């Protein structure tokens, strides 16, 4: 049955990581170097080597993920281990340096490592939370199906608006032009689309028309819901155009709900991917810093 990355194989790697932590803490407490614990003692070197090997292995996950035909464990198992052992790395690295920090390349490596790990934590959070949100938001439709429906509503709305008035037609046309789904990183993450504007404009158009007809200006306020608007329309004189307008608003609100869902879908997907654009480049930087750290340590000898 389905197992999440945290419970994979009865959380086998959680126990491995815990054991690693306990052994490291035990040795650290037992070991009493002179003058203070640091990276230069035998334990410091041992933990440093373990840490460096761990980093190398954690980096290999990127390779493993792309080795589709390997029979070396499942990707899920690797990811589970990647998370738990990556978390344990915080402790291993801190014990390795004996909590000594400074403004140097060594601490730079540590800071980079922590950044990588914490961006990874965000990733774990996102992976556990967003999939279910995404499914709920989609309501059993695919993104393509929703986009198709939007395009279709656009067509129908345009045809309907054509029969009402040129200004309404223009409003709908502009709404179609204004509906932008996806785009740059920021747009994707903000989950905004231009579909709201159309409804506001149509509302204005109704108000305007009513003013021209000598009726009272529509008592519509900004926060009013579409349902209220439909009620409002129903109260108006029963003419064909009003009826068409009401249908148009129905269509546009359906479109708006779809567009909102698509935008949110894109947002969720973007969030699930964006952190990797921090996690992966930082880990490559970490690799460089780590090599510099190791190399420079040899000059102390």
């Amino acid at each position, binding site marked *: *049955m389905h197992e*999440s990355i945290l419970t994979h194989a009865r959380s086998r790697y959680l126990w491995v990581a815990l054991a690693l932590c306990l052994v490291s803490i035990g040795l650290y407490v037992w070991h009493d170097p002179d003058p203070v614990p640091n990276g230069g003692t035998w334990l410091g070197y041992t933990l440093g080597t373990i840490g460096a090997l761990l980093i190398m292995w954690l980096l290999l996950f990127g*390779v493993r993920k792309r080795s*589709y035909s390997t029979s070396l464990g*499942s*990707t*899920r198992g*690797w990811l589970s281990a990647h998370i738990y052992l990556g978390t344990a790395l915080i402790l291993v690295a801190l014990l390795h340096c004996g909590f000594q920090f400074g403004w140097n390349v060594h601490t730079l490596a540590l800071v980079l490592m922590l950044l990588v790990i914490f961006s990874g934590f965000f990733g774990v959070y996102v992976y556990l939370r967003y999939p279910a949100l995404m499914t709920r938001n989609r309501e*059993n439709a695919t993104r393509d199906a929703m986009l198709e429906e939007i395009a279709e509503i656009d067509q129908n709305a345009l045809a309907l608006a054509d029969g009402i008035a040129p200004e309404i037609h223009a409003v709908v046309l502009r709404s179609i032009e204004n509906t932008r789904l996806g785009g740059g990183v920021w747009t994707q993450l903000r989950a905004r689309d231009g579909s709201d504007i159309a409804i506001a404009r149509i509302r204005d158009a109704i108000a305007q028309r009513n003013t021209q007809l000598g009726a009272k200006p529509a008592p519509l306020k900004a926060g009013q819901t579409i349902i209220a608007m439909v009620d409002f329309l129903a109260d108006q004189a029963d003419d064909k155009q009003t009826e068409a307008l009401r249908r148009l608003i129905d269509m546009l609100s359906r479109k708006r709900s779809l567009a909102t869902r698509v935008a949110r879908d894109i947002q969720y997907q973007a969030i699930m991917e964006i952190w990797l654009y921090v996690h992966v480049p930082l880990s490559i930087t970490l690799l460089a810093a780590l090599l510099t750290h190791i190399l420079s340590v040899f000059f102390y000898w």
Partner: protein
Amino acid sequence: MAERFRIAIVGSGPGGLSAAARAAERGESHVLLEAEPHLSNTIYRYQKGKYVMDEPGILPLRSPIPFVAGLRETILEAWDESSARLKVNVRHRHEVKSIQRRADGVFDLACTNGAKFEAQAVVLGIGLQGNLRKLGVAGEDLPFVQYQLDDPDAYEGETIVVVGAGDAAIENALALAKQNNVVLINRKDEFSRAKKGNEQAVLKAIEDGVIECYYNSAPERVEALNAGRKPGRMILSTDKGRAQILLDRVIARLGATAPRGFVEACGVTFPSKDPASVPAISPQYESNVKGLYIVGALGGYPLIKQAMNQGYEVVEYITGSVVEPADAPLLKAKFSGLGGFRSVDEALARIQKNVPVLSHITPLQMREFMLDSDIRTPAEGETIFARNDYTNSFYSIVEGEVRIVVEGQAASVVLRRGEFFGEMSLISGRRRSATVVAGRNCILVETPRRSMNRLISSVEAVKREIDRIFIVRAIQSRFAPEATHEQLADMAANATLVRYKAGDNVFQEGEVGDCLHLVRVGSLTISRNIGGKDVVLTYVAAGNYVGEMALLGESRRSATARAAIATETIRLDGDAFKRLLAKIPVLKLRLQKEYRQRTAANLAMQSAPEGGDIISFLMAQGAGEATDILLIDESLCVRCDNCEKACAETHGGTSRLDREAGPTFANVHVPTSCRHCEHPHCMKDCPPDALRRAPNGEVFIADNCIGCGNCERNCPYGVIHMASKPPKKPGLLQWLLFGRGPGPGEAPYDAGIKKDGQAKKAVKCDMCKDQAGGAACVRACPTGAAIRISPEEFPAYAQSRR
């Protein structure tokens, strides 16, 4: 006055054309009658640039016209050229409507255009496509009434009336509606015959006003108009009265009339009513009507090369020459392992003599049967197949004996010369129920599923014999391995085979139960009515029984058993069963034990009815006929598509699964991916028999695929498509270090660029049978969202998702 020829050949497909060419080459008096204005209509109708393959590769070609794998155009051109060079006497637009054999042995052939011919011998090579059904009303042959649509984009801004409610009509209507005004005429009030996807699409198009549809309507007549903007009109009778449509074009897609009716009218008999059965023909391809020969697909030989060879041979036979069939060397090689081999005919006769079930079939069927089959001479003690293997071939014992190792029993059952085995998996489509080990001096004939099924459907006696043995063995293996055949005879005699359509009730909750059912093909769901709602409790796969509860105490059915898919059961009479229980006391104990387990499982499910909803949902997706299905937990899936990438990377660049498509219920998503059905729909009509089942159950496509697309059309789940191999990618390190793209998991450079003339073959999931670690999609899933399970695990799966 009728023209007279020695040989009249009907149909200019590969078989007919080859026969005519051979007759022309030999200077025989002949005529080739073709309904269409071109040769080989079936191949002519292939899409432009289609790559035609020449399987089976081992069979040599024997024909005066050339044929090698290549483009449709090249092949047709070569055929036109050689038919002109050999001066084949072809008459186009001559559709034969009747063939009658006179008392003096001469055939009278009449064509729809009034032409008449006389011939001493007739070669029928009309294939299986049949004739397109016409409107059947006045005006059906007007120039703007067509029965086929090659390129929907060729029409623009027209009013087109599409008649029909099948897939072809819907697909045409939808494609034409893009730039035309389309009216659809449906005789019924629904589109029940169409595939689900097509039905939904057309209903939506009608609702949106893209297509106008007349339900419960039929064309009354079509007329050409001289005045007005439209060239014609159709008068339509609807349930609200008569209607008139002014139109530019009528496209009628009413299917084809199977050629069987015509063939039967010629006097040829078919062995059974089964639509898959083919007429019995002699080794010289002569039917039961003397002088009437049948070649090609109509006679059961769907491949181009086979048909061409037969066309050549049939002319030799008619003219009295002796010719060894082209397949003789193949058979000789096959029989070479057989001790004391003298000739092919002798070996065939020996097998038929030794195996009674094969004695009912004609020599030509036997030849075909042996061409497909393998002769196996396993050493003593060698395992022929193991319990739980997924193979589905059929074995006949020619010499020696085999032992069937029954689980949990020291003594094994011995089968001897003349008996057969392997019919259980062949029929149920499920795993082998026992291990079979070779005995001394054992010679077996192993027949693949397709050939055996063809034989079963064309020879009634074979079917009867296999069904009889199946029932006895099924009862024995499922209930009473220790019982003798005599003890079971009573029950077997009272057992009947019952068929159910998907959704039919086998029995209903509350009914009085007087029998039990052993599921032979398909599967059932067991449900109870709880609080007015049907709650599915469990799923029963082929090989298991239901209804025993009512015989063991309770007299009424405690639950409803419903066929999840098309299902066949063995109905065992309750009284006979009770008599058997009395004879074998241990059986009662065994049944009671199983009964207790089932009741406990049912109670567990009843306490968590949401689990039943998941089973119902899976069944609605056709999982009832699956053997292994990919499920994605959408609460874990991060939509990284690594599953699809892994599939593409391990399978020549084309993913065989579509993660996003497919329905979701309670976070359980059924992606578009092969379920490895028990009776795969894709295997139904594969000319080269390229769809196979591996021992672990994987349904895969072998390399001899000819790219005909039948499997793609037959798969109800849309998991097969046609693809050509993309170019090779650089390795991981090259990509990582030198930026050579595309990298692992990335789409190839020219994906989507269609190259004409490149061989496209069918691709589908093979469950990574050649991958060491198992299914790549599941292994590549980083979050554990993707799993593959078999239907037996559904109840447990449903419970795990509470």
